[in-house]
């Protein structure tokens, strides 16, 4: 147990406390306790997200083992440069997100808004590249179910592993990157909300939990991509 820093606040509803701690919810004794609860809450949510993505990763592991040739063939059709560039873009957005939280900690509102906007721009750039990659899949007719008619070189790449199993790889590709992109879109929306609040000066060095909580979510989405990149783009090697 952490020792209390001060005697329990007798009346958290008093005018004094309300004005001293903007952003303190009435069920908490002080901002430090509220901060601990906020962080624990988002970590618990992220653990459920680990299990959510974990199920897809487990399914991927099984079918990649069953139909390795087909998965390697499908993987070779992805553009490794775009995948690597997007990884760098997303890692960059994690850096700017971390700097956003730091700016909030030191109470630099201008830097906070700047870094939040930069994070949004980098997130948007990632989604743009992803959209271009999805578009390429339609051009090559390798979208499972919707537009599945590989031909020419693409067909020659996929044929050795079996076309049905190659289609299964692309199901995984779209499901995993699609779920990830959905999380990115939600993240960009949350960032927009943060920018609006930060411009109004809602965050102080004492109270910036929303920035930190969205930051933790954003880093988690980054980690999912850190695993998606090698698993989807790099399997079977490129040699």
């Amino acid at each position, binding site marked *: 147990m952490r020792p209390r820093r001060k005697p329990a606040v007798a009346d958290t509803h008093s005018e004094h406390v309300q004005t001293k701690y903007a952003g303190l919810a009435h069920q908490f004794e002080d*901002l*430090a306790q509220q*901060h*601990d609860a906020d*962080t*624990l809450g988002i*970590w*618990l949510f*992220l*653990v459920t997200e*680990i*299990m959510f993505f*974990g*199920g897809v*990763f*487990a399914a991927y*592991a*099984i079918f990649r*083992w069953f139909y390795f040739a087909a998965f390697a063939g499908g993987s070779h059709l992805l553009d*490794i440069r775009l995948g*690597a560039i997007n*990884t*760098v873009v997303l*890692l*960059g957005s*994690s*850096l700017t*997100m*971390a*700097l956003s939280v*730091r700016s909030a*900690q*030191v109470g630099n509102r201008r830097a906070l808004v700047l870094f939040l906007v930069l994070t949004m721009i980098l997130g948007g750039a990632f989604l743009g590249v992803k959209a271009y990659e999805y578009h390429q899949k339609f051009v090559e007719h390798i979208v499972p179910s919707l537009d599945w008619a590989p031909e020419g070189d693409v067909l020659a790449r996929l044929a050795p592993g079996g076309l049905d199993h190659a289609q299964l790889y692309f199901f995984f590709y779209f499901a995993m990157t699609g779920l990830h992109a959905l999380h990115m879109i939600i993240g960009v929306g949350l960032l927009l909300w943060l920018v609006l609040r930060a411009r109004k000066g809602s965050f102080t*060095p*004492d109270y910036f939990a929303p920035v930190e909580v969205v*930051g*933790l979510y954003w*880093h*988690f989405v*980054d*980690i999912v991509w*850190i*695993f998606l*990149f*090698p*698993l989807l*783009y*790099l*399997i*079977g*090697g*490129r*040699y």
Partner: protein
Amino acid sequence: MSEQIVPVKTYIVVFAGLIGLTLLTTWVAFIDLGAFNTVVALVIAFCKMLLVIFFFMHLRHSGGLVRVVLLAGFFWLALLISLTMTDYRTRSWTPAPDAWSTTAPPTHP
């Protein structure tokens, strides 16, 4: 507040490390290591994850409760993947019985 303020330099160095590992994993993919390609790629991804968790997500400065919650999450994920793979990998070890309707059930003395 219990929050530590991490110097900007630390974030920059961690970011540089992440970029370096990204280049490394992309480069290694072009070298034939056989089955170890996957192992190397996953180990590098794991290292990148640790960098993000400990520095960007401040686990270095987080309390024990957060660490236990995260460890529990990874433990359950490990159960999910390892037990599922155990099932699939060992199914072929036990011979499939003949269709159950064609043979009489074994009688016990």
